[in-house]
C-alpha cells in the first residue's frame, strides 16, 4: 500500500493555491477599453497593421462597434476601423485568462484520457509486460472524473456566453458568416454539449468499470473479471477512436471554425498519448524512487521510454504530414493557420518542434539511455512541457491572436491543474495496493526482462 506523503500533499495544495491566485490575478487584471487604447497608442505603428490583418474571426468583433457607432454619422472610416481594432484587442485580452485556463484544463484532462487509452490497449492486447503498471495507470485515470467535470463546466460557460473561446457560438458572427451558417447544423451549442456529455460520459464509464473489475479481480479466484475487462477494453477502444477524433474537432479545431484538417484527430491523439505515457513513466519512477513498486525493473522503464520515443516520432510524423500538405498546396483558407502561427508564435511554434521531436529523438534513441531514470525524467519533463505548448499553439492563436504571453494566467492555470492532478492521482494510488495481484499475467510482468 502506498501512503500519500504529507510533503507531496502539501506541495500539491500549495500549487493549487498559487494556481488559484494566479488565475484570479489573470482575471482581475484584464485591461479595460481605455487601457487597451493606451496600450495600442503606445505600441509601434507596425503593430497596428499586423493586428488588423487577422484572419476571419476578426470580423465578428468589428460587427459590434460598427452598430454602436452608427448614431454618429460623422465618424469617418479611419476612426471606425481604429475603434474596431481596440475592441478586437480588448476581446482578445478578455479571452486570455479563459484561454489559459482552457489550455491547461484540456491538457491535463486529455493526458489522462491518453493513459486510459494506453491502459485499454494493454488490456485488449493482453500484454504481458505491463500489468505491474496497471495500478499506476488506474491511479492516473483517477483524475479523469474531476478533470472532465471541470472541463465540462468550462464548455457550459462557453455555451452560455460567459466567455468567447468559441467564436461560432456568437450569433452575431454566424449571421454574417456563410461558412459558419453552413456548419451550424453541426456547430451549435446544444449539439456540441450533447456530444461532450456522450464522450466524457463514455470515457468515464469505461474508467469506472475497468477499475471496478480490476479491483474485483484481486479478490476473486477465477478470471471472469479479467475477461470482462478485456471485452470492455476492446469496446472502449472502438468508441474511443471515433469519439477522440470528433472531440478534437469540437474542443480544439472549432476555435478556428473556418479552418479544418482531416488528420487533426490523429495529431491531437498523438500529442496527448505521448504525454500520457510520459506521465506513467514519471509517476512510476517517482514511486520507485520512494521504495514502492519493487517489481518494476529497468526493462519496464525501458519499454515506457521506447513508447515515449516512438510516439514522439509518430507525433512528428503527423505534425509534419499536416504541415507539409498545407504548406505545399498554399491554399489561402488553409495556409493562414500556419502563416499566422509562424508570424506571431515563432518561438512556441518552432520551440515545440525542438522539444517534442529533436530533443527526444537525440536523447532517447540510445538503448542504454532509456534505462537511466534521470534521462527518462529529464526527457519526460521536456516532452510534457513541449506538448503543453503544442496545445497552447492549437488554442491561443484563435482566441487571443497576437496578444499571447506566457504569464501569470498561464502559469497559474498550469500550477492549479498540476496541483489538482497530483492530489487526485496520488490519493487514488494510496487507496489500493500498487500491485494488481489478481491479473493472470502478473507473474510474467514481474519477471519481465529484456
Amino acid at each position, binding site marked *: 500500500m502506498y501512503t500519500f506523503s504529507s510533503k507531496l500533499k502539501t506541495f500539491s495544495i500549495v500549487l493549487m493555491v498559487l494556481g488559484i491566485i494566479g488565475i484570479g490575478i489573470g482575471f482581475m487584471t484584464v485591461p479595460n477599453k481605455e487601457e487597451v487604447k493606451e496600450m495600442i497608442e503606445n505600441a509601434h505603428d507596425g503593430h497596428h497593421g499586423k493586428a488588423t490583418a487577422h484572419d476571419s474571426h476578426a470580423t465578428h468583433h468589428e460587427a459590434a462597434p460598427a452598430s454602436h457607432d452608427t448614431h454618429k454619422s460623422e465618424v469617418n472610416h479611419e476612426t471606425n476601423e481604429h475603434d474596431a481594432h481596440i475592441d478586437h484587442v480588448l476581446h482578445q485580452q478578455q479571452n486570455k485568462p479563459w484561454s489559459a485556463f482552457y489550455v491547461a484544463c484540456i491538457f491535463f484532462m486529455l493526458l489522462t484520457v491518453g493513459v486510459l487509452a494506453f491502459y485499454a490497449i494493454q488490456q485488449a492486447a493482453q500484454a504481458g509486460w505491463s500489468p505491474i503498471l496497471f495500478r499506476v495507470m488506474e491511479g492516473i485515470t483517477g483524475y479523469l472524473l474531476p478533470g472532465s467535470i471541470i472541463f465540462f463546466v468550462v464548455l457550459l460557460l462557453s455555451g452560455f456566453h460567459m466567455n468567447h473561446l468559441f467564436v461560432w457560438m456568437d450569433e452575431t458572427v454566424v449571421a454574417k458568416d456563410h461558412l459558419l451558417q453552413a456548419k451550424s447544423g453541426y456547430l451549435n451549442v446544444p449539439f456540441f454539449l450533447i456530444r461532450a456529455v456522450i464522450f466524457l460520459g463514455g470515457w468515464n464509464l469505461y474508467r469506472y468499470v475497468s477499475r471496478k473489475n480490476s479491483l474485483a479481480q484481486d479478490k476473486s479466484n477465477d478470471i471472469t473479471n479479467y475477461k470482462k475487462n478485456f471485452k470492455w477494453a476492446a469496446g472502449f477502444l472502438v468508441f474511443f477512436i471515433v469519439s477522440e477524433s470528433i472531440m478534437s474537432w469540437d474542443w480544439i479545431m472549432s476555435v478556428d471554425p473556418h479552418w479544418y484538417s482531416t488528420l487533426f484527430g490523429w495529431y491531437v491523439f498523438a500529442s496527448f498519448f505521448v504525454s500520457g505515457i510520459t506521465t506513467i513513466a514519471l509517476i512510476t519512477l517517482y514511486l520507485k524512487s520512494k521504495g514502492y513498486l519493487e517489481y518494476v525493473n529497468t526493462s519496464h522503464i525501458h519499454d515506457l521510454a521506447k513508447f515515449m520515443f516512438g510516439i514522439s516520432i509518430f507525433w512528428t510524423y503527423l505534425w*509534419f504530414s499536416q*504541415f*507539409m500538405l498545407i*504548406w*505545399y*498546396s*498554399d491554399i489561402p483558407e488553409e495556409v493562414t493557420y500556419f502563416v499566422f502561427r509562424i508570424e506571431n508564435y515563432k518561438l512556441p511554434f518552432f520551440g515545440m518542434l525542438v522539444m517534442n521531436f529533436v530533443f527526444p529523438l537525440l536523447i532517447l*534513441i*540510445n*538503448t542504454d539511455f532509456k534505462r537511466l531514470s534521470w534521462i527518462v525524467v529529464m526527457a519526460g519533463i521536456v516532452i510534457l512541457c513541449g506538448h503543453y505548448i503544442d496545445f497552447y499553439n492549437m488554442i491561443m492563436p484563435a482566441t487571443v491572436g497576437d496578444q499571447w504571453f506566457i504569464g501569470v494566467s498561464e502559469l497559474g492555470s498550469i500550477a492549479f491543474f498540476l496541483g489538482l492532478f497530483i492530489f487526485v492521482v496520488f490519493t487514488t494510488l494510496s487507496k489500493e495496493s500498487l500491485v494488481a495481484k489478481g491479473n493472470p499475467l502478473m507473474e510474467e510482468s514481474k519477471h519481465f*526482462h529484456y
Partner: protein
Amino acid sequence: MSNKVIHAIYNDDDVLMDAVKQTRAAHHHIEEVYTPFPVHGLDKAMGLAPTRIAIASFLYGLVGLSVATTMMRFIMIVDWPQDIGGKPSFSYIDNMPAFVPIMFEMTVFFAAHLMVITFYMRSKLWPFKKAENPDVRTTDDHFLMEVGVHGNEDDMVSFFKSTGAVEVKVIEKH
C-alpha cells in the same frame, strides 16, 4: 595445443542457457553456440561484447541524410531550378519541407541496407558460402555448444553430460 573440441547438444533453450552459465562458471572456453532460432539473452550469458551495430546504423543514417540533402540540392536548386506550386527553387532551406520525405527515406534506406551489409561482413557471410554449422540438427530443433578442450577430456565430457546435454561428442577440429 590440441584442436579438439567438445560438441554438447541440447534440445531445449532453457537447458542450454543454464548449461552456458555453468560452463562459464567452470571456466571452460565456449567457442560458439549454434541454435535454430535466436535465443534471448544468450549473448549476455556467453559474455559476448555488446553489439556496436546501433552506432554504425546511426552513422549510416547520417550518411544517408547527407547524401539526400546534397542530391536534392543539386537536382532541385542548382542544376534545374523550377517553380513548383508558386515556390521557386532558389534556396534549399526555403523549400526544405518538400524535401523532408526524401531526406527521411534516404536516411532509412542507407541505415537499413548498410546495416545488413555490415552484419553479413561481420558474420563472414556471403552468397554461396558453405554452411558452417557442425550438425544439421541445429537448423531444426537442437542446440549445439562448441567448447575447446583444455585439460582432462573425460572430466569435461562428464561435466557436459551433467549440464543436461542429450549428446556429448569430442571432435578433432581441422
